[in-house]
């Protein structure tokens, strides 16, 4: 019963169907040319890295939606204050000669009445405005309290947030992102190595990293990188605007509420069929490397790949691959020959020992990092 106006020509018209296929092929070729032109302009420097971001940010300056958090609250409050005053002196100008006299007469004769009503309206409006001020003050106090109880900053050396140079997982990330339909953002892009590697593979990528310092090298090389956290960046990206997202670095240390926010943003900013690549240290390697102080005070800690897979599935992603990597610190099995009385207690045989080694490997050792690749399905 449902006709589809965009359907190709009638099925029994073979020539028309092939013409439709030709037209679609032609448009695909044109689109490929357009994509190539954008890449060429970017590579030549005609389209400076960050220009599109600067334009987006500039528009936000003119929009009330660009104001976030406290600034937005205060801005809204000032609008309430501004509109809480009602001017009783109505304009009396008129295009007609007698109009102005008539209007002034009405204003004068109704002045006492309007004044009585308007005084009450203004009193009510100011009461409402005052209430909002009290609420905002209270919110700011609460925010300040929360700030005071934040976890102490941890040494960067122990909790690294950005990657540099070549990484074992870059080839897998590039393979997963090949063919995505739109731009790819690399969170915590560090020195921009991965952004460059993606670009070299014809993937239109850019990076974000909260550290100005670490971005300097990337900026010097003309890599399209921006100084902001991945959460802040995704917050202002339009819905379904990204073909892919690479998450690494700080995503491993997010507080639970920040992780929820990240998942919410990722699932709305990446387009359907878009690809998410998530790199993380394994919880075991982190626990082994971090000091007791860091382990106790860290706001968050790395998750197991199974946990990320579970969280991503609940947000409409299908997990297509989980790859283990990094250093493999697993202990090797002992051979039966080694289990003689000279080496080991005679009560322990090789099988028992190897079972214990497997348990230790599983709980404490194993690959230090992993990669989860997921595709957004809905």
């Amino acid at each position, binding site marked *: *019963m449902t006709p589809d106006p965009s359907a190709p020509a009638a099925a029994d018209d073979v020539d028309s169907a092939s013409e439709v296929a030709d037209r679609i092929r032609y448009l695909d070729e044109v689109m490929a040319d357009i*994509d190539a032109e954008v890449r060429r302009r970017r590579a030549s420097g005609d389209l400076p890295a960050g220009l599109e971001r600067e334009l987006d940010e*500039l528009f936000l300056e003119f*929009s009330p939606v660009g104001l976030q958090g406290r600034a937005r609250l205060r801005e809204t409050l000032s609008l309430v204050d501004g509109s809480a005053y009602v001017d009783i002196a109505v304009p009396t100008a008129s295009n007609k000669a007698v109009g102005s006299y008539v209007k002034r007469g009405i204003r004068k004769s109704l002045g006492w009445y309007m004044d009585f009503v308007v005084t009450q309206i203004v009193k009510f409006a100011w009461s409402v405005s005052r209430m909002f001020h009290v609420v905002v003050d209270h919110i700011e106090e609460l925010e300040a309290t929360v700030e005071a109880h934040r976890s102490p900053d941890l040494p960067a050396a122990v909790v690294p947030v950005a990657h540099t140079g070549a990484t074992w997982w870059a080839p897998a990330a590039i393979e997963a992102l090949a063919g995505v*339909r*739109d731009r790819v953002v690399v969170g915590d892009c560090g020195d921009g190595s991965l952004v460059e590697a993606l670009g070299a593979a014809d993937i239109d990528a850019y990076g974000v990293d909260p550290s100005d310092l670490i971005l300097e090298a990337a900026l010097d090389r003309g890599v399209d990188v921006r100084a902001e956290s991945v959460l802040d960046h995704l917050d202002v990206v339009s819905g379904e605007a990204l073909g892919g997202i690479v998450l690494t670095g700080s995503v491993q240390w997010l507080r639970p509420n920040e992780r929820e926010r990240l998942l919410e943003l990722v699932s709305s900013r990446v387009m359907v069929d878009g690809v998410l690549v998530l790199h993380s240290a394994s919880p075991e390697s982190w626990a082994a490397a971090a000091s007791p102080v860091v382990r106790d005070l860290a706001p968050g800690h790395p998750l197991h790949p199974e946990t990320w897979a579970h969280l991503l599935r609940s947000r409409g992603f299908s997990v297509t691959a989980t790859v283990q990597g990094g250093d493999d610190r697993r202990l090797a099995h002992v051979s039966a020959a080694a289990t003689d009385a000279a080496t080991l207690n005679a009560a322990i045989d090789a099988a028992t020992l190897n079972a214990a080694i497997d348990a230790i490997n599983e709980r404490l050792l194993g690959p230090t990092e992993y990669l989860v690749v997921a595709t957004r399905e809905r």
Partner: protein
Amino acid sequence: MTAVHQFVPALLPRDATGDHTRALRDAFRSAGWESDIYVEAAHDELQDEAIYFEEYPALARPGDVLLYQLGTSSPVAEFLLGRDEPLVLDYHNVTPESFYEGWEEHTVAKVALAREQVAALAPKAVLGIADSAFNARELDDLGCPATTVVPILVDLEDEDGVDERERTRLATDHGEATVLLFVGRLSPNKAHERLIEALFVYRRLYDPAARLHLVGPTVTPTYAEAVFAFAEELGLTDAVRHGEGLTDGQLAAWYEDADVFVCLSEHEGFCIPLLESMRAGTPIVAFDAGAVGETLADAGILLPSARPALVAAAVARIRGDAALASWLTEAGRRRLADFAVETTTRRFVEVLAEVAGAERVVA
């Protein structure tokens, strides 16, 4: 006798929903059916064609089918929820409230109410007619028992011709410069700021004299102010023209004057300006959002994102390739035939006849 009566919040002249409603009424009457239009409000010009919706109970007859033109919030929706006649929804889409958040809080409340009304009406309706498969999916998701796609009636043959004086004025104004055009109300879901960004990049990379022509009413003043302030900040004040309240002939002139029609809307339930552009023979570049890809099909360059560099490159490709421009013009004319008003009208009558017939059998 079959009777299909329409309900619409507002009956306005020179308005897509108003024209659609009146054309349907005429089609139903031509089919030998009784058909009246019940409204919450009607423009002065159309008072004789409309009946206030609360008068319907006194005029109701057994076997009536009610067709609601649904695109905004209205007390008419609450009224129809309380009626027992078989209800058919003609759904033109409601822009999600998220687009208005931060811009106009009262509009957020209004569209939120409209979406609540759609959600309440969808399961009650015997059929949902949608302008596009995109709109039909929304009705399906809301529990509408059956849906079908029939495009909005747009009589593209009904043109008074191009206002030649307007066309000459426009051509003199911009000379040889590239002209990008978008037609649509100034509202956040239309993403005018993206058009400004695309113009900025296009001027920087391809044509420093390029212009952007925007046509449409200012329905969200805070958004419009931000868009034009943004253009000013980028030094584009003289490069951006805004046309409002144009006659049909003037609008046709703006379409024909443009080199490329560019639509970067983030939400469209159908997008009639695409058809108008096809009629004018203006090549189309559009961002694939909402029902845009479905309406456009292969009659334009459909972009996977609205990034200004990509949009600028697409416009430049058309400007630099006359064969492609002609190909797109021809593709647009071919696509337009799929929306021929005779075909669409016939389809509406068939669909409503099926509903009315089935209801008679049940009765």
